[in-house]
């Protein structure tokens, strides 16, 4: 490689790139990094809000916030974390960075559309933030925007809905782009049986993005129109039915949790074989289960509504379908464990996060079955048990996979290595803090503490204090992890092109990858997990 290309796409020409060279770049790697920085910033904002929520709950009664402020805080925490971090997080950042590299392409199929996706995302984020300081004050409905409250409350819900609509549009465009890219731009020899499992998971995710997000779009539009002129489509006083809102909302928002978790599973499927030094066990089963989850996950939305007054038949059907989704999820977990079996496991930071994912996601998945059986759901519905379960899946799952991806791929992106010891310590602190924070939530929920209240009965205090202390431990661990990554990417030792001896295509390129990625498509000669072939296309 020529000298001026040492920094690869980070500095494609002789001069130092300016802001405009980044925010108007159509290079998938730069767009990926734009996403990474933006979702990272919103993640930190969401964490700060979460810590404030926990601080309020350290003692019964008003501690640091009034009821109204608390409502705004948890709404904001939810909207920021769901729509600005988890949904765009792994596909937007690592999908854009790695998808073209992993299939040996020069870029995604529609580079300019890709840039538009990021801009729409930023526009939506900006509007969501504006909704806090304008109109009738910050939205206080929770991220689910349930009617009738959301159509009545004087707070600035309409702008937040528009923001969600626009972010949804951005998500659809990313999905269209990825499906087209995977169909059209695979390098010669990269047939479907050689696609890395991360690409398979992005493929399944992209279909869900295309097919489910529009339903959220129309739901948000209807709610906006409802607030503007009062059509009455969800207003029982005018013949409408509020339950239908919940159906429409969850027709998107349940598949959306698979938009959140599938790419995370893809990341873990990449990492485990590399650090167990074994080809992945059941490649086809893992790939197929991604598609199966995407398909079956589209039919289970009703399990959010067991106590909403839906018919018993519907409850039975949705409960059954919910149990069916557990099958492909378990297929993945068993295959990961089988990959580990008799592997030569090295516990480096990406692997630690990936293993934590498997452990925490299993807890999250099994507690999900408690919620999926109609009888037990009646007991724990709308309690802190749901909050605990959800965070085990979303944070313990997607969040940890995101951290795993950071530790796995950032050395590729920046060509530098972070401090392994600090990363391991950060992982341990995060893991302990996480369980301290969310396990007591599930316990206190089983005892009957409802979610979304700023106040609680005194007998719940002990578990709440533990959870709040856990939030501090978790925040400290996150701080250490981010500082370590930042320092590593600025000043760390050179990582080399393939620090983990992985066999997927992105590791064939120099680190950081050159601006044009694969300017000539490589001839692919082996599968993604033929680890003896590491470093060859």
């Amino acid at each position: 490689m020529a000298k001026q290309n040492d920094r690869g796409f980070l500095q494609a020409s002789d001069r130092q790139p300016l802001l405009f060279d980044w925010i108007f770049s159509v290079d998938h790697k730069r767009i990926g990094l734009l996403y990474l920085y933006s979702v990272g910033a919103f993640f930190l904002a969401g964490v700060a809000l979460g810590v404030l929520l926990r601080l309020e709950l350290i003692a019964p009664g008003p501690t640091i916030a009034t009821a109204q402020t608390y409502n705004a805080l948890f709404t904001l925490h939810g909207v920021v974390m769901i729509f600005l971090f988890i949904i765009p997080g792994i596909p937007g950042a690592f999908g854009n960075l790695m998808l073209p590299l992993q299939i040996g392409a020069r870029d995604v199929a529609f580079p300019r559309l890709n840039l538009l996706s990021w801009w729409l995302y930023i526009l939506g984020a900006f509007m969501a933030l504006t909704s806090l300081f304008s109109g009738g004050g910050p939205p206080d409905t929770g991220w689910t925007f349930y009617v009738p409250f959301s159509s009545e409350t004087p707070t600035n819900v309409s702008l937040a809905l528009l923001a969600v609509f626009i972010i949804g549009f951005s998500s659809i465009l990313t999905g269209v782009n990825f499906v087209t890219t995977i169909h059209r731009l695979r390098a010669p020899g990269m047939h479907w049986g050689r696609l890395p499992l991360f690409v398979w998971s992005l493929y399944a995710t992209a279909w869900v993005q295309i097919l489910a997000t529009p339903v959220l779009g129309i739901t948000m539009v209807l709610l906006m129109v409802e607030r503007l002129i009062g059509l009455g489509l969800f207003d029982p006083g005018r013949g409408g039915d509020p339950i239908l809102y919940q159906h429409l909302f969850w027709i998107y928002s349940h598949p959306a949790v698979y938009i959140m978790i599938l790419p995370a599973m893809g990341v873990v499927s990449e990492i485990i074989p590399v650090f167990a030094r074994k080809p992945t066990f059941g490649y086809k089963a893992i790939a197929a289960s991604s598609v199966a989850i995407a398909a079956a996950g589209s039919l289970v939305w009703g399990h959010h509504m067991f106590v909403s007054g839906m018919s018993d038949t519907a409850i039975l059907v949705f409960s059954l379908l919910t149990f069916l989704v557990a099958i492909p999820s378990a297929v993945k977990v068993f295959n990961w464990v089988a990959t580990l079996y008799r592997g030569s496991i090295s516990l480096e930071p990406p692997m630690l996060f990936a293993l934590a994912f498997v452990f925490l996601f299993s807890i999250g998945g099994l507690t999900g079955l408690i919620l999926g059986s109609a009888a037990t759901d009646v007991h724990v519905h709308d309690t802190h048990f749901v909050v605990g379960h959800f965070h085990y899946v979303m944070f313990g799952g997607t969040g940890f996979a995101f951290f795993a991806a950071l530790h796995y791929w950032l050395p590729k992106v920046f060509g530098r290595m972070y401090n392994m010891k600090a990363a391991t310590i950060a992982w341990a602190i995060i893991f302990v803090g996480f369980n301290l924070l969310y396990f007591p939530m599930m316990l206190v929920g089983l005892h009957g503490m409802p979610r979304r209240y700023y106040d609680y009965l005194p007998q719940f205090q002990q578990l709440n204090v533990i959870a709040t202390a856990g939030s501090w431990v978790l925040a400290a661990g996150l701080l250490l992890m981010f500082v370590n990554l930042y320092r590593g990417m600025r000043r760390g030792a050179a990582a080399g092109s393939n620090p983990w001896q992985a066999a997927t295509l992105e590791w064939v390129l120099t680190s950081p990858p050159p601006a044009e990625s694969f300017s000539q498509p490589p001839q692919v000669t082996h599968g993604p997990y033929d680890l003896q072939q590491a470093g060859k296309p």
Partner: protein
Amino acid sequence: MTMQRDATAARLGMWLFLFSELLLFGGLFLLYAVYLARYPADFVAGGRQLDLLLGTGNTILLITSSLTVALALSALQQGRRRLCLGLLCATVLASLLFLVNKGVEWQAKFDHGLFPGGARLEETAPGQKVFFGLYFVTTGLHGLHVLIGAALLLWILGLVGSGRVTEQDPVMLENGALYWHLVDLIWIFIFPLYYLLL
């Protein structure tokens, strides 16, 4: 970028996007189905008050415009650029006439107080309120798509005129025509559901 010359990819991307548009309207058709099952009599009463003549006129306009846009594509592929431009103009004209018709129809409803909050609608049964709520939001969203489609075709017309969409590289026009067919297709469902069957 060289990859943007991949016409198959461009068509595939457009089809995927059209799926998402279908599902956007899918939410509205779902509401229609549920509320029709709940308020069949009110829906019939509401449907009777829609102007069948204007609805039929608009259907003819849209189907014709779908034909002209398809012919425009054929004309371009045969290298008959002037004919293509003329047919695209006809398509855009038809879409504008559609919107004028729709405006006349809406205005008549407003004049009769048949709108959310309007005097006459407020007196009717809940089922009719829902019917007209759905009618306005569905035809409104469809009208917005007509407007977007017309603007898109107008822009492509400019590209054909300036020689950037050509016989060799017609994929932009193909995709514009696909979008226009979708707008047409959705109307083909709206028209019987609201005007004919009830």
